[in-house]
Every structure is written in C-alpha cells, then in structure tokens.
C-alpha cells in the first residue's frame, strides 16, 4: 500500500494518506470519519483513503463505501 505524506493547512499539520485499492486492504486504522469527528489524533497515524466509489451507480446511497472502518 502506497503511503504519501501530505500537509493540511486546515489542520496545520502533516499526516500520512494510505492509498489502497480495495476496502479490504484498508481495513483498520484511522479513517477520514475519525478525522472529521475529531475522535482520532491523526498526527502519527495513517489515514486510509480508499475512494473507489463504485456506489455512485446502483450500490445504494446509504453506503459510504469509500472509506473502510
């Protein structure tokens, strides 16, 4: 899984984004949802970014799909 360090002006800190191909690959760890709820301090953790949004066609809108938790 490829990891990329990025800097967020909004958070005024760097964090690592993991680029995964599938939800299975990204299972566990910190998620964007954790980031948005402030549940996790993302400083030293990898954020799983799995944004293969199949669900825009016929997968059902209640399915967040893109991020694994």
């Amino acid at each position, binding site marked *: 899984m490829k990891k990329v360090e990025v800097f967020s002006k909004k958070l005024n800190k760097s964090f690592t984004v993991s680029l995964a191909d599938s939800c299975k690959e990204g299972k566990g760890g910190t998620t964007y949802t954790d980031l948005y709820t402030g549940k996790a301090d993302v400083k030293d953790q990898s954020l799983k970014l799995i944004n293969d949004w199949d669900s*825009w066609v016929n997968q059902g809108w209640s399915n967040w799909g893109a991020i694994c938790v």
Partner: protein
Amino acid sequence: MKTAYYAIGLRCNLRCIFCPCSEEQPDYKYFTLEELKDTIEETLKVKDIDNFLLSGGEPTIQKSFIPIVEYICQEKKRPLSLLTNAIVFSKNKFLERFLSAVGNSKFEMVTAVHNHIPEKHDYLTQTKGSFEKTLTGLKNCVSSGINTSVKYNIVNYNYKDLPEFIDFVYETFPDEVGLILCNIDISGFARKNKDVIPVSFEKSNPYIEKALDKVIKYMNNGWKRNVRIFTTPLCTLDPYYWYFINKSTKDDVAAYRSPDVIEENSKLMFDFPSGTGTPFDECKDCKVIDICPGSWESYAEYYGTGFLRPVN
C-alpha cells in the same frame, strides 16, 4: 465498472447556458428505437458492459425513451443510469409508465439543480418555472424509491452559493439522495458565456471547502448522505477534504454514441476519451496520480497548468 453511454436525442425542454445542445438547431438529431437496439447489440458484442447510461439533450422527452428503457432493463437485464432534468417525472402518469418499464432492474438517476434560489436556477436553464418543475419531479422520484442524486455544476455564476446550497439539500431531500459537486467542461460553447461559466479552482475551491465543512457537520450529526466531488484535482483542495473527491472515471466509458449532424461523429465509439484526467507533464511524478481524477483538459487549455501542485 464499464459503462455504455448513449445520448439518445439532442432535443431538450431546457436551454441551459452551458450546454451545447441549447444552440438553436433546425433539426434536432436523435436515434430511432431500432438504431438504439442495434447499437446495444453491437456494443455487447465488443464489450462487457456493466451498466448503461442514457442522456441527451433530455432523454426522457425522446420518442424512444420508454421502449429503450424497457429493452435495457427487461430484455438485457442491465442496470441503468439516467441523466435527466426530471421535469417529466413531475407528471405522475409518466412516472408510473417509466417505473413499469424499469421493473425490478437496478436504476439510478442524476439531476442537476443549479441553485437553491429558483430565479438563479431558472437563469442558468434559461427557462422560467424550471426550478419548481425539476424539484417536483425529483421529489416524486425520491418518494417512489428511485436512487436519486442531485448534481451541482460549479460555474462562475453560482460558486459562491454552494455553502447555502448544502443546507438546501439537507433540508429538502432525505439522506438517500446523493449529492455530486461537479466542475464542468469549458468547451468552446461554455467559453462563449465567459462571465457566467468558467471559474478557476482558485476562486471556487474556498467555497467548496466551506460547503464540505457544512457536510462534515451534518455527518457528525448522524446524516449519511453520499457527497462526492467530480473532476477536481487532489492538489487543488486541502488534503483534509480528499475523502470527498471521486476517483478518476477516465476508463469507465467503454462505449459511446451521440447523434450528430456530421454522420461520422454519430458512430458508435469504443473506449471514448472522457476529456478529463491527469495527462499533464506536472502530474507524471506526482505520488497521488493513481487516485487523482485530475481536471477537464479544457480547463488547462483555458487557464494553463499553473494550478497543478504535484504531491512529492
């Protein structure tokens, strides 16, 4: 996900300022039902198609619309997506006929709402009263259990209204209705309306970020709406918001057909280039190229590539 995309006819009941189909044409081109059936057969011989997508003009006002929906859903048993302004669905009888044509097949539709202020929506569609009709049609579809998504085309005329539009969507539609924020193709036609259409990422993205802050607030209050941003390069938004950026769809259009006055252009095409992506020199060494949707190539032609900030 391999999609076959057919524009079934160019006539429309709106005259959107940024749509090339709005240009006055003496003879709006369309495909007959037989032509469309042949197109589907030819497509399936060459490609494994996961779903069909119908657009126009406005697909729902074409003669072949209901029968071709029936053909795709009942005979070919494939999922169907529809790009529609939803106006015809404001009539319950039409909606009933349509639903019986879809049957048990998987179906979803995407409808553009250009603003929450009716007059502003109507200005962009150049059609008085269109906001009310589209909204009625959309609400009818949602109540019938159709998977529906609202699309906001971000242009110079409406980008500042985006944060308020978010509240409108959350207040008007249930969670099941998705929201797509979309930058549009600055093609030759859109460039004719310079004051209204083109907007740079530099100008619009701060408003997208404000809008997404609202979405995040709603998420934290338990809302589960699917919100996605299309054709916005990762490097133009703070990484905090990358969750919402939809991955590239550049490989998805496996077959494409649209009627055209020039016969050659009306032919069925395979692996049709979407006109979006990351074909720029600056992107080559960017570490997020695999997941980045990039931008419209027409955007880079218009504004240059100075907006690109490769991640490395």
